[in-house]
């Protein structure tokens, strides 16, 4: 058995790589679930009128990567206890919105892994992950950064 600390991945390590196609139906599902009202996400006429050649996804669409990742596995790989993990913050930096037909590849790396004292005692572990999302031409579409917080046991 390995202890959690022994399982920490060094900064720069690739945690996982996922690849999926951006689909119109999934854009619509995600738009509905997040109450996006702009018809450019769901209506071809509206998106064409707004200057898009393909339906653009909503801002946080790459969250659908949850379907393509093994949540238990990456949490294990990081040596985190899933029942004590919360997401502290997330940021997205866009080159352009992902659009229908894009084959996105997300390469997720550990960029920081630190501990600090929690407000109610105990030690919190903060793991910062960065995912570079590229299209099939290899061009960057967006970058996502997230900080996972593991509360002390």
């Amino acid at each position, binding site marked *: 058995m390995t202890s959690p600390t022994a399982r920490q991945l060094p900064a720069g390590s690739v945690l996982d790589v996922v690849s999926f196609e951006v689909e119109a139906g999934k854009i619509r*599902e995600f738009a509905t679930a997040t109450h996006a009202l702009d018809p450019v996400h769901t209506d071809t006429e509206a998106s064409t009128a707004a200057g898009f050649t393909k339906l653009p996804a909503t801002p946080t669409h790459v969250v659908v990567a949850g379907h393509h990742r093994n949540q238990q596995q990456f949490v294990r790989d990081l040596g985190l206890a899933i029942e004590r993990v919360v997401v502290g913050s997330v940021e997205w930096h866009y080159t352009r919105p992902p659009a229908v037909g894009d084959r996105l590849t997300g390469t997720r790396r550990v960029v920081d892994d630190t501990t600090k004292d929690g407000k109610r005692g105990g030690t919190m572990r903060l793991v910062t992950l960065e995912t570079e999302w590229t299209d099939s031409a290899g061009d960057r579409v967006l970058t996502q950064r997230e900080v996972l917080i593991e509360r002390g046991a």
Partner: protein
Amino acid sequence: MTRTPITLLPGAQLESRRIGPITQTDIVRFAGAGGDFNPLHHDPDYAIRAGLPGVISMGQMQAGMLAAWVSDLVHIEHLISYSVRFASPLRIGETIDLAGQVDSIDATTAIATLSLHAKSGDRVVITGVARVRITVSH
């Protein structure tokens, strides 16, 4: 023809949006859309064993709602960056108000920085920042 960026003035309040009361169905719908099947978000017994008062939504659900609201206002192609911090959990039965204001405008680059939040009553659920391309008024 691309849509013209909207005009925003420093200090302006953004038109707010109210969503809720949040139901288990809303959370399940987001789970299906995004693929987060952590039982904290759909299994009340599991959530209680984990020390929570009951099921809570995924932070990404309200983060996605706040993002979609902002991009509805400023148009998706003009969103440069968006970030959120999770301040408190959102429970079933709560209603959230999405609101924000224009913090600053860089007239040279025509980029505005918006501060955003989602609140349930007076309690902050998430805060956010968006940088967006705008049309600078002269």
